[in-house]
């Protein structure tokens, strides 16, 4: 009998372990505000998202040391979505319904965001999404603190077209085969065509996740770049596949001076696993670099390294996005004197908080924020050297102006429009976006 029950308990535990990886209420106080953290701590995306979970715990600890919010301590609730998107939706529901959290910070991939969206809409809760994404979306319950294409991709292309960037005339758009690169490249292709680049001067290439054999593609890029026009690669290649890609570039002797690669998914965290020698001079476009020299950034880095207990740990753009998102949420809650979703949604638009690069991040009516755009060249110490910076903050644009099907759409979550896809031509909401 005991044997049986023990076995069953073990089985149940194992099953609970796989399905609800770990719902860890860190402190069990009666009167706390609960903050959900919805990131992958195992699986493919663990490489990027584990740091974001630590960032959130760090921010919450700092806020609690300052006295919490509305006189209450914040209590983090961490769940592991294990790089499994249907599971993400289940866990989001569990966070909101069972753990009763007031706000969730989480997701990295667009597919994760897309799968949890309906849950947040249905249960009317809040999600802060910290990663650059493809745009073409604005949802009432979601705040996009990462860059939209006009805050990352378009300025990067502008830089490469300029004299400083090398007056590039031919373009390789290389990406991993999923929604973010596909949409970004669609926008970029249209933008380049509008700028007078000929169709035959644009090469688009997609590869599967985790692609490791880049020989053919790199030699194609080399051949494409050998037609006498200055060529650059715009890379939306995701995470892991970048290492073999850059390695192959180095081995085949393509230098940054000849064919520069500008990447949208390679940051300090990814570079810490690289031998950066073959990468020096290649570019990345972000809204934050660890090397940016401001007092706010210096303070953030040293506090982060103290918290994590290692001076080797780097900071990166999505971490800054969480920093901004968290501070905006705190301000909104204090302004509304409530953690209710509707009150926060109304209060947060127009609030601003300092970012780490010396500017102010403002929450816009379309639930995106204002950001500076920085272009950095990779250095041999794995840091970026900023070679170009937009003079003013760029407001995030939910619907791209360069795609004909979304150019007339605007998002505005304030009265009287209150709509994520308002058609400025027909003056109606919910006009066919797709």
């Amino acid at each position, binding site marked *: 009998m005991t044997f049986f029950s023990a076995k069953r308990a073990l089985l149940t535990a194992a099953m609970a372990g796989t399905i609800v990886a770990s719902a860890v209420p860190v402190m069990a106080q009666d009167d706390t505000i609960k903050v959900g953290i919805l990131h992958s701590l195992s699986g493919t995306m663990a490489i990027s998202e*584990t740091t974001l979970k630590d960032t959130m715990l760090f921010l919450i600890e700092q806020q609690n040391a300052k006295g919490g919010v509305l006189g209450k301590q914040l209590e983090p609730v961490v769940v592991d979505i294990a790089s499994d998107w249907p599971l993400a939706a289940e866990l989001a529901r569990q966070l909101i319904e069972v753990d009763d959290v007031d706000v969730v910070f989480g997701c990295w991939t667009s597919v994760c965001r897309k799968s949890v969206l309906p849950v947040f809409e249905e249960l009317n809760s809040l999600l802060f999404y910290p990663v650059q994404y493809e745009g073409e979306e604005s949802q009432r319950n979601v705040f996009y603190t990462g860059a939209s294409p006009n805050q990352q991709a378009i300025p990067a292309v502008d830089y490469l077209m300029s004299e400083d960037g090398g007056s590039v005339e031919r373009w390789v758009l290389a990406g991993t085969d999923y929604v973010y690169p596909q949409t970004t490249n669609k926008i970029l292709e249209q933008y380049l065509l509008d700028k007078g680049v000929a169709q035959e001067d644009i090469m688009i290439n997609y590869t*599967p996740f985790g692609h490791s054999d880049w020989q053919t*593609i790199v030699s194609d890029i080399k051949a494409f770049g050998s*037609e006498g026009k200055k060529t650059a690669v715009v890379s939306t290649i995701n995470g892991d596949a970048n290492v073999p890609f850059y390695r192959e570039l180095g081995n085949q002797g393509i230098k*940054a001076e000849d064919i520069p690669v500008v990447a949208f998914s390679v940051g300090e965290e990814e570079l810490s*696993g690289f031998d950066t020698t073959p990468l020096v001079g290649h570019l990345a476009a972000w809204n934050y670099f660890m090397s940016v020299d401001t007092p706010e950034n210096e303070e953030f880095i040293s506090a982060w390294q103290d918290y994590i207990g290692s001076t080797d740990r780097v900071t990166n753009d999505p971490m800054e996005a969480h920093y901004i998102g968290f501070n905006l949420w705190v301000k909104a809650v204090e302004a509304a004197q409530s953690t209710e979703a509707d009150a926060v949604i109304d209060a947060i638009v127009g609030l601003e908080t300092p970012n780490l690069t010396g500017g102010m991040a403002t929450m816009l009516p379309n639930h995106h924020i204002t950001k500076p755009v920085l272009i950095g060249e990779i250095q041999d110490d794995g840091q970026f050297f900023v070679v170009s910076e937009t003079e003013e903050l760029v407001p995030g644009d939910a619907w791209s102006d360069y795609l004909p099907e979304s150019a007339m759409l605007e998002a505005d979550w304030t009265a009287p429009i209150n709509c994520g896809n308002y058609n400025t031509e027909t003056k109606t909401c919910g006009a066919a976006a797709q």
Partner: protein
Amino acid sequence: MLTHLRNLLVAVLLFLAPAAQAQQIDIAASVAAMAEASLKELATIVTDLAATGDPAVVPALTALGDGDLYADETTGRVLIQRGSTVTDPVTGEHVELGADADLSKIRVNNSLRRDIAAALAGMTLMSDNPATRLSAANGFLANPDPANIPLLDEAIAAETNADVLRAMQNARALTVLRDSESSIEDRQAAVPLVAGSGRNAITILSSSRTDAPEELVASINAAIAGLEQERAVWGALQNVWFGVSLGSVLLLAAIGLAITFGVMGVINMAHGEMVMLGAYTTFIVQLTIRNNFPGLLDYSLLIALPAAFLVTGTIGVGIERGIIRWLYGRPLETLLATWGISLILQQTVRSIFGPTNQMVIAPTWMAGSTEFFGLSITYGRFWIVIFALIVFFMLLLVLNRTPLGLQMRAVTQNRRMASSMGIRTPFVDAMTFGLGSGIAGLAGVALTQIDNISPNLGQNYIIDSFMVVVFGGVGNLWGTLVGALTLGVANKFLEPYAGAVLGKILILVLIILFIQRRPRGLFALKGRAVEQ
């Protein structure tokens, strides 16, 4: 008379010396100004320094281009730091750093690096070192300027090294070709020389075509057409090489599985994790060597080979003894159990080493590439092909020529009879599984050179490995070899037309169709062994 001349010479030299001194001061000031300069100011300083034409600016500019030029924040001095030696960029003297020295790199961007390379080309063309002269000549190739033709003529006349001479002649030919002042005959004569200048000839020719007069365009077009034809032939061969190289990676990943799955019949889902553990062993070996014996760093991969084999082999034996031996004859349970092991191993590694990628540096003999006629062959890939073949033939030797190999074959063909003949079948099972796992570890060592070292490393290879083994014919090593190479080459020939994503799908569809026709793969085992 002679003394007169000598006196005159001395007088001239004396007269020149202060002038040189004055320039020296100017250079020193400009170099010192680099410490606080913005990118735009740096560009001006580089142009100014290059305009002096003084060889004294060469070390500073070279260091700036290579990222070896530093500014000491405490004293404001500009210094060259290479390794642990610090020198003055102008005088070249060794400098002792103060205790409170705070060196920060003077950073440059791509366009500045291009400017520096162009500036240095003119100044180092007459250097004593052939390698410097070669890079100078290549610098001229990148920035053809008619003003440099006399300089190049002078250098060509003095050049003794054949390689450098060829580069200089190419540079001169290109400069003439681009020079609208030169006669059409001269420019036409330059076309074949440029066409023979190597891989980038088509690039150079087609960019020269844009502003060329009509007569010239015709001869350039003819040269390009000839080159394109040549390139088509070499392109096909290059594709074969890419295919062989991809095939060798598949072979390495699959060959261990050919033992555990092919010979023993264990559906081993943890095979990929053995590869991953081999890669992590390499990482640890290299880390230890870098910290303790930096001199051996270039050989760390060779040292990692036996280490990885032993580590993964031992773990393999452990898995066989602890779990798999209870599950023989139950393929479904084996599949689930080994899949569980693979998850456990992944998360263990993630917990110990963290989720981020680890770094294994390529030894110098594996970096870079070489030109073999029209083929470009990267050393890393080349050694992996060689290594895969060595592993394959060693394994073949073990299976066919050693007592252990004989026992393995006996046990897998007829367990009960082998047992009756006095073979310790459990021991042989453990050894076989250990061997297969150990070989997966060897594959991990090689994969550190082309893939990420992350806990997910193995997952990328497990499906491909099964594909190769099944396609090649279960239980036949030669089938694995032919299967891996066929899949590699087929993949590489499909990729340019279908793209990487569709190419992979097509390969899968082709294999499914093939298995429909020949369920036992390319090299099917015949005889009674098949029935079991």
